[in-house]
């Protein structure tokens, strides 16, 4: 089983980690990739004309080529290494959006976006005078496709949409949305943060123009993220940050910049993290998406069934439709923080709050929620223990049962 691949569970054998939608634990292969690069071949990239520097460059550019292949991109030059999805989306809004949009343009996004795919567009709309259109969700937690058709047909310059909602678990029909958006000449920006570790992604097939994800949600280290962009678009764009590494030549009067992707990688990049990102994606590929999809769907089913049997629990997100292995829910009379705090003390990690999607919570008219999300290391036992813990939390906080040491410990 893959749980054994993750050293965190050696350090904490009892840990039940159900917060992978926030960030995933790291397999030994990724820890080793970091450690091996730092202890055996560390140097910076693209500069040192000495063997170690050349080796580091090969490893770094090799990681880029691997990411391109993983995403189904046409060329490694379309893959930009950045800090995370947030930085990538800000880059697209600033470097592509700002010079290209004006008061007549419409930016179409959805109410289910993570703040990182909402705030850059909200700010861009304010800066350029463009109109910001936010597509609603249906009562079943799916994107309102009627509204999407209507709004895109009314004219759109950008469609910024998440592949998978980090609150609802909804999997959006990106290829269909992209086709509608492209019919209006819009550029399609896809947030893949919740997707890459859980389902196959092919940026060419989905016909996105930009696709972003964070390494840390895909078993890779923090501090490394990816922007994939169509080469024609990247080629037209000015740099986002300027500084070291990304220039051809610099003089007092005139500076010329490198071609993409290096034009967008100012400063010494996260070399070790990029190399370890390759390790993480290899790890995913070795397990295989068939196996990941099967395992996560089985655990999701168990989770949904179990939650449905607990009195007072209401589940967010689509019922009976394709959804990812994450479930946000509310429990009558028990505050989400109390649930996550109580479970936390039993060694069960779940998230409580708005999950960086406050507009969605507002639109649904709900306060904070609790979210349990599945990763490659989770087992049926994890889900069952979580459900038992939830029953205890309910009994305790609704006053059915008194707090004793036996309720508090597992």
């Amino acid at each position, binding site marked *: 089983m893959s749980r054994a691949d993750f050293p965190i569970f050696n350090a904490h054998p009892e840990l039940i980690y159900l917060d992978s939608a926030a960030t995933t634990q790291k397999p030994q292969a990724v820890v080793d990739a970091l450690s091996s690069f730092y202890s055996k071949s560390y140097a910076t990239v693209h500069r040192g004309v000495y063997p170690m520097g050349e080796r580091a460059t090969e490893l770094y550019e090799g990681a880029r080529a691997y990411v391109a292949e993983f995403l189904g991109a046409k060329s490694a030059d379309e893959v930009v290494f950045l800090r995370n999805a947030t930085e990538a989306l800000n880059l697209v809004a600033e470097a592509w959006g700002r010079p290209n949009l004006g008061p007549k343009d419409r930016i179409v996004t959805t109410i289910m976006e993570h703040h990182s795919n909402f705030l850059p567009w909200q700010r861009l709309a304010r800066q350029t005078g463009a109109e910001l259109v936010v597509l609603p969700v249906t009562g079943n937690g799916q994107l309102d496709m009627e509204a999407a058709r209507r709004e895109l047909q009314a004219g759109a310059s950008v469609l910024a949409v998440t592949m998978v909602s980090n609150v609802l678990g909804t999997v959006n029909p990106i290829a269909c949305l992209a086709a509608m958006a492209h019919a209006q000449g819009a550029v399609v920006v896809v947030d893949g943060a919740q997707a890459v570790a859980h389902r196959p992604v092919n940026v060419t097939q989905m016909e996105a123009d930009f696709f972003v994800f964070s390494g840390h949600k895909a078993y890779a280290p923090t501090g490394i993220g990816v922007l994939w962009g169509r080469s024609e678009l990247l080629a037209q764009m000015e740099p986002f940050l300027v500084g070291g590494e990304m220039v051809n030549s610099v003089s007092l009067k005139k500076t010329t910049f490198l071609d993409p992707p290096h034009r967008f990688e100012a400063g010494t990049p996260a070399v070790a993290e990029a190399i370890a990102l390759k390790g993480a994606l290899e790890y995913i590929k070795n397990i295989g998406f068939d196996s990941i999809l099967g395992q996560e769907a089985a655990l999701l089913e168990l989770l949904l069934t179990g939650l449905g049997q607990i009195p007072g629990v209401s589940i967010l997100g689509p019922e009976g439709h394709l959804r990812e292995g994450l479930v946000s829910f509310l429990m009558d009379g028990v*505050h*989400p*923080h*109390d649930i996550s*705090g109580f479970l936390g003390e039993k060694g069960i990690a779940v998230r*409580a*709050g*708005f999950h960086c999607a406050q507009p969605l919570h507002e639109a649904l008219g709900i*306060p*904070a929620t609790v979210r349990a999300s599945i990763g490659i290391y989770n087992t049926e036992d994890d889900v069952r223990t979580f459900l038992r813990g939830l029953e205890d939390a309910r009994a*305790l*906080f609704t*006053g059915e049962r*008194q*707090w*004793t*040491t036996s309720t*508090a410990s597992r």
Partner: protein
Amino acid sequence: MDDIYRQQIMDHYQHPRHQGELQNPTRREHDSNPLCGDSIYLDLNIDDEGTVQDCRFHGEGCSISQAAADMLCHVSRGKSISDLAAFDKDDMLKLLGIPLGPVRLKCGLLAYKILKVALVKHAMGTDGVEPHDGLKPPSQ
């Protein structure tokens, strides 16, 4: 262990003694933790001698934020402003009695923070009750 404190917190959460609104508070103060949805209004009646004659809270939030507000009201009643000025963060945490991580700390200290702001505004003679700092008034 912590059990006695936890039971006490649950007791204040499930059976609050000082929840509600005062008819004519000399001061009403509100604050929230927008990221957790904790929201508390604190009503105070402070007489001319500077004694807190009555103190009530209402709002919503997790057990810790609500129990902390109830416990703080209990402590504040009958105290003078100078007594309460000496009541510090550590005293509040001692009152709760359970270890709080950085996130729950905000819940545990929300009512305390509101009380401190209320006392400062009282000392400065800032207008007392209206207009709720521009925030929506309590329901009911």
